[in-house]
Every structure is written in structure tokens, then in C-alpha cells.
């Protein structure tokens, strides 16, 4: 290969190629980091909630405008659940105080021992009753589901904080409480500041995301507390026949309003809507970065095309001479492609360092994780291929220059 003459020709007029190399370097630095962040955001937004066939699940919230007594509230909860179960297209209904991904709910600190100073975790507290696990299709991996005998009745006006003796935790919460264990059933832990009364784990579910679905382990730390509690508002998780959730939710709210003994406020949301709302910002950032990356590549390609065209124009006569001296079409093409490869390779080498440097800055200032090397490799290969593709057009046209041009004066 005739690398040496190409290289020395490059060294003669450096500015143009240098600018292209700088563009390639900047592109690679931004592209690798941007794609990494996009992938991270998409991975976060695609984590499973633990709810099976989520698109058929939603919830309806109902709250009376007048204050009802403890027995009245519990009676209403039972009546409302029965009304909802009677609706066409409803497969299962379960009372709860909150829903995963809904971005509103309660949480409490927990401790593995009463003496422990700092909490082990801050799990989402789901107040539920038997049937919740089936309705949401959660996967029980250890121990047993709750039964009516586990359910504790609580009047928040009278009981300070109701802590049922037996609860179900997610695997993630189990690991946070007991880092060295793999089985959690039978273990006890404490809510809040670690008061007097310990709670026993009766079952473990594989996964149920919290209301906030935070990134990382914290987003899967949830506890199911068997409680029948007279909170002013009720959420009902509803599983519908496939494809009917929106209609079912609308009818559920209407029916609850019509049948209520006192005026009630209702709202409904499907889990799909909750999920969209929860990850809206992640999606927005991902789209923005994808758009910038696409434009970035477009601009870089236009830079390579422009530079090659300029170099071809500058060398029409030399190309003619080379052709006249017997260089084939292929040789001319190869010349420009090789020249371009030298330039992009230089740019990519600088870009790798620049990408790592940019990643360092992002780690230091914005808490972005370390950039995996695969992204650099993918970015480098992409730019190499784009470089060759960009140079091909102008180079092919240059190769078509007639040898006769060599005999003409400019």
C-alpha cells in the first residue's frame, strides 16, 4: 500500500484534514457518552414493575367528601370492591393504599435490629389484603401468601401506627435487611425507629416496584402489610380482560360515583399511563440525545464530504497525471479512502481520550456512571464506516477524472 506518499501529502496541507480529525474526535466523544446515557435511561424505564401483564391493570381512587366513621369506611370498602367485581370485563379487584409507579404514597424506614442506628432501607408501604398478590400477578418466591388471619384491623384515629405481626417483603428489601442471607421467611425486623414490636416475614415476592420506582435497588424495596384500615380514600387495583382496561376504569369511576351514599371524588389511571408519566423525563432526555447524536453524525459526514471534495478539486491535475501514467480507477479511489482512513483514525484516537475525559467530567459534576468501553468501540466503528461511506462518493467521482486533463493547462 502506498501509505507513505499519502501521509507526506497530508503533512503538506494539514489544516483541512486536521479540522476533519477534530470533528471526528468531538463526534466520538459526544456520541459515546450520549448513547451510553440514552441506553441507561431506556434501561431504567424498561425495568419490570413486578405486575404481570401490566397493560391490563389500572386503579381507581375514591374518596368521600364527608367524614365517615371507622365502621362506615370499612363497610364502604367492602361494598365498593363488590360493586367493582360486578362490572363487565373485570377479572380481579384488590383494595390498596397505593400503586406502583404512581408517584404518590407512603414509605417507612425499617431496621433489621432494634439497636441499629441507621435504617436498612426505606421501603414503600403497601397496605393490602388477601387477593392483592393474585390480582396484580406478583410472583411469590418464598413462604406463603397472606390469609384473612394475618389481616389486622386499624382505625388511624385511634391506633398510632398499626404494624401487622406478619408481612410480605420483596427480595430486594430482604437483601437490604439481611445482606448475608438468601432466605428471609421467619426473620423479623422493625418499622420506624425500631420501637418495641418486631414484624415477622411470612412470604417473599420476587418484585414489586415502589410508588416512585427510583433507579437502583431502592426502586424495588416494598413491603406488603396485611391491613384493613379506615383511611379516608381507597385505591382499588383492577385487572381487566385484555384490551378493556380503559373502558373498565371509566365505568368503575362512574359506578362508584353513582352508587356512593355520600358524594365522592374519584380518579382513575391505567398502569400504562402511570408508567408514561413516571418516565416522561427519562424519555425526553433520551430523545433529545438521540436527535443530537443524529445531527452530530450528519454534520461530521458533511464535513468529511466537503473536505474530500476540496482536496479532489485541488488535485484534479495530479489525478489526471496519475491516470495518464497508468493508475487505475481503483487506485485513485483507494488513495482517497486511505487518506480518509488516516484522518478518521487520528480523529478517533483523539476522540477516545476526549470521550473518557468528558465522561470524567460527567461523573464528577453530574453523577453519571463510568462509560463502558463497548460504547467507545461501537462509536469508533460507526465513525470509521461513516467516514468511508462519506468519502466514497467524492472519491469515486475523482477516480473518474479523465487522463486527458493532465495534458491541459489550468
Amino acid at each position, binding site marked *: 500500500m502506498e501509505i507513505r506518499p499519502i501521509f507526506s501529502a497530508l503533512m503538506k496541507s494539514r489544516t483541512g484534514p486536521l479540522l476533519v480529525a477534530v*470533528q471526528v474526535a*468531538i463526534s466520538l466523544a*459526544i456520541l459515546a457518552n450520549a448513547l451510553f446515557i440514552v441506553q441507561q435511561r431506556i434501561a431504567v424505564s424498561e425495568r419490570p414493575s413486578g405486575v404481570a401483564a401490566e397493560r391490563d391493570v389500572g386503579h381507581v381512587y375514591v374518596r368521600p367528601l364527608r367524614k365517615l366513621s371507622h365502621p362506615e369506611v370499612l363497610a364502604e370498602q367492602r361494598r365498593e370492591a363488590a360493586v367493582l367485581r360486578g362490572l363487565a370485563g373485570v377479572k380481579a379487584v384488590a383494595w390498596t393504599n397505593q400503586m406502583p409507579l404512581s408517584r404518590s404514597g407512603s414509605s417507612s424506614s425499617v431496621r433489621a435490629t432494634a439497636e441499629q442506628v441507621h435504617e436498612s432501607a426505606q421501603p414503600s408501604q403497601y397496605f393490602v389484603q388477601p387477593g392483592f398478590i393474585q390480582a396484580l400477578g406478583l410472583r411469590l418466591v418464598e413462604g406463603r401468601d397472606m390469609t384473612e388471619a394475618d389481616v389486622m384491623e386499624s382505625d388511624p384515629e385511634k391506633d398510632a401506627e398499626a404494624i401487622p405481626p406478619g408481612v410480605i417483603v420483596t427480595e430486594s428489601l430482604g437483601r437490604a435487611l439481611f445482606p448475608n442471607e438468601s432466605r428471609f421467611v421467619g426473620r423479623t425486623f422493625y418499622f420506624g425507629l425500631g420501637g418495641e414490636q418486631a414484624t415477622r416475614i411470612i412470604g417473599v415476592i420476587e418484585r414489586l416496584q415502589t410508588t416512585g420506582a427510583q433507579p437502583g435497588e431502592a426502586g424495588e424495596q416494598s413491603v406488603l402489610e396485611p391491613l384493613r384500615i379506615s383511611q379516608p380514600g381507597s385505591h382499588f387495583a383492577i385487572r381487566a380482560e385484555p384490551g378493556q382496561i380503559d373502558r373498565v376504569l371509566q365505568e368503575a369511576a362512574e359506578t362508584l360515583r353513582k352508587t356512593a351514599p355520600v358524594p365522592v371524588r374519584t380518579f382513575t389511571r391505567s398502569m400504562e399511563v402511570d408508567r408514561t408519566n413516571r418516565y416522561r*423525563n427519562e424519555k425526553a432526555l433520551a430523545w433529545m440525545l438521540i436527535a443530537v447524536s443524529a445531527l452530530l453524525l450528519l454534520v461530521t459526514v*458533511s*464535513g468529511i464530504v466537503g473536505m474530500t471534495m*476540496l482536496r479532489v*478539486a485541488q488535485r484534479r491535475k495530479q489525478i489526471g497525471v496519475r491516470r495518464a501514467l497508468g493508475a487505475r480507477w481503483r487506485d485513485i479511489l483507494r488513495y482517497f479512502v486511505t487518506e480518509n482512513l488516516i484522518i478518521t483514525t487520528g480523529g478517533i484516537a483523539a476522540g477516545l481520550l476526549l470521550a473518557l475525559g468528558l465522561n470524567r*467530567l460527567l461523573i464528577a459534576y453530574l453523577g453519571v456512571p463510568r462509560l463502558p468501553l463497548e460504547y467507545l468501540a461501537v462509536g469508533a466503528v460507526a465513525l470509521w464506516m461513516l467516514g468511508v461511506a462519506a468519502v466514497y462518493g467524492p472519491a469515486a467521482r475523482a477516480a473518474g477524472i479523465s487522463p486527458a486533463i493532465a495534458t491541459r493547462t489550468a
Partner: protein
Amino acid sequence: MFRYYLLLGLRSLRRNPALTALMVVTLAIGVAASVSTLTILHVMSGDPVPSKSRRLLVPLLDVGPRANYSPDRRDPYMTQSTYPDAMNYLRSGPGVRRTALYGVMASIEPARREDPLIDLSGIATTTDYFPMFDVPFRFGSAWSAADDERGARVAVLSKRKAEAIFGSKDPVGQRIRIWDTDFTIVGVVGDWNPVPRYTNLINGSGGYFEGEEQLMVPLKAATDLAAEPNGNVSCSHESAAGWAAFLASECTWIQAWWELASASDRPAAQAWLDAYVAQQQRGGRLERHAPNELFDVMQWMDFLKVVKPDSKLAVWLSIGFLVLCIVNTMGLLLAKFSTRAAEVGVRRALGAGRGAIFRQFLVETTVVGLAGGLLGLALSFASLALIRQQSKDLSAVAHMDWEMLATTFAIAVLASIVAGLLPTWRACQVTPALQLKSQ
């Protein structure tokens, strides 16, 4: 001469239309990307109340128990005040005005059972809230201090909500039934919607940027009727059951604000707070002895991380993109100018100095920059419109103001000058003799 160069510049734009278009578009895209991300950051981190932001203070105490205190760990939810502290601030705190507020949710019962309810999200606060945050009134006025004292059943509505319920006529004196109680409307707020919503950042009705207070009622009216807080409640101590016990508890759920006569009174406010805490500690409270903090508006927004790291990330990457566009334009200009070496040679031979050539080409690149800036501005508006579709939060912040408009132009022109410097300098280097000879 400048006009002549300008004419030359404009004419040269037409000479290689494809190349020129490419330069203008590249600059425009780079400018649009950085301007739209900068605009969002600018609005998010902007001072919502420049005239007062250093005089409005939020006091914050650490009310957690001694047992699990470590100075380097901060409870992320303990960002508000307890009810007893808020009441003490209102009674005897420092400054010319003091208020406290918490988010509430209410539904207006319709006259006929079949009609839909009207939901209102708003705040329970005190009369000082309105002058403190310069809240304008469209109809009526704020309630009185006496109304605060009595917990009068009166309400102020937002303009939009008042129109939705009563139409455009003056609703003052009308009644609405919320929390099973009749409230009389005393006022309707005019156009007032600060972004960020610094007065009530910890709200349960929108977020840092989006949403408004649709309903405002006296704090005492809301607590008398046990209107539950719609927002963040953080309890670090065990507390007894019931509403009275909740009010007396160490749970934090109220935001307190003080307005000082001048920012220089801040040390005095800090001294008052320290003295207050010392007195409370003698009574057995606030056992952590953590620092007692005061935040002004900008510090408060910084503390609550109103600007998400994502917004900064977007700005950084788009500025990187702008740099790329500048380098690209530089290459294109170099190509363009290199074809005009002969022209430069002739001009130089006819007596033009290097300075004259430099000015001519600089004017030409600036013309490209202005064209790129104009197109970039149009693209910025388009991309901001696109961004507004993404979320309610973004739709509240993705708006351009005069400051950003000027910044756009400055960025575009500066970008084109930076891009043009090297090619222009190269053009000046042309030696007339060589050029003329090769012709």
C-alpha cells in the same frame, strides 16, 4: 468600505449557494441545539423574584431524634417545618412579614348530585402570603389578619379556576362548599404564576415548574377542619393517633417563609432562630443540636435541586455539538476561501493591505453568522415547541425571553466569527506575486 464589504459578503453568499447553505444550516443547527437547552436551564435556574429573592427566607430545623443523628447524613424528606414551629414563627418570628403554607386538596360539591365535582388543589396559608409574594388581585382582596385569627371560612381562587366555576364575572361574595363547609370567596388572584414555583416547591400538585395554586384558604380554617396535607409529610418520631396529635407532633409538613426589610437583616434573623431553638431545647425538643439553617430564594431552589442534573447534561452536550458545528463551518469556510486565492492576490497587488483583506473576509463570515443566527432562532423556536410537547414540566420552562433572544444572536455571531478567524487569517497569507504568476 464596510458597506462595500457587506455587499461583497452578500454577493459571495450567492456565488456558491450549496456550500453557503450548508454553512448556514450547520451553524443554525448548532445554535438551535445550544439555545434550546440553555433556554430551559435559564428558566429553571432563573430568579423568580429578583426584587425580593435575597430578603425572602425559609427557616429549616432538624427535628429528628438524637439516637440516629449523624451530621454527615441528611434526611432527604425533612425539608419543611413542624406545625408548632410554624405557629411560633408566625407569632413572634423576625422580619416584616411571615407566612406558612401547606398544600390542600378540596372538591366543590355540585348543587345537583349528578353533576361532576370540581377539584381544587391549593394551599392553606395566612394573609401575609399575598403581599409577601407580590400576588396581584383581579377581584376582591386577601382576607384579613382577623380572618386568620378566627380561621374564617373564606377563600381566594386562581383566575383560571374562578373563570371555570363562575365565568368571567366577579365571584366575590359567592360561596363554595368544600370539606363539608361553606366558604365565601373574598378574592380572585390575577395573572401570577412564578416559574419555578418557588413559594411552594414541595407541592402535591404539579411540581417545581408546572401547576398553580387554585385555592387559598386561611391556615386555621384548614387545620380546624382537619384538611389533610396534600404534599410531603415526614415523621421522624412516633406520634399518637388523630388530627390533634398530628398537629402537635414532630412531623414536618408546613413551609415557613419570612420577609426581611433588607437582606442585611439576615444575621439578626439567624440570631433569632438560634435563640428560638435554644429556648425549645430547654423544653426538651430539637435534641440533635444540628445547625439551624436559613435559605434565601436562590439558595432554597438550589437546596431542593430545582435544576435537575439532566438539564445541565443536555446543555453541556449541546455546547459540545455547537463546537463541532463551528469546526465544521471552519472547514467549509477554509474550502470556500481557498478557491478565492486569486481574487485576494489581485486585491493585494492593487494595494489592499492584509488588514483590508482581513476585514473583508470577516464581514463575509459575519454575514454567514447572521444568516445562521436567524435560521438558528427559527429552529430554536421550533425545537422549543417540540420540547414543550414532551411533558407539562417542560412546557412550563421551554419559553424564550428577551435575554435568551439576545443570547441566541450573540452565540450565532460569535460562533461564525470564531469559525471564520482561521480561514480569514489563511486568506490574508496569500502572497500576491505567487498568485498572479500562477494565472
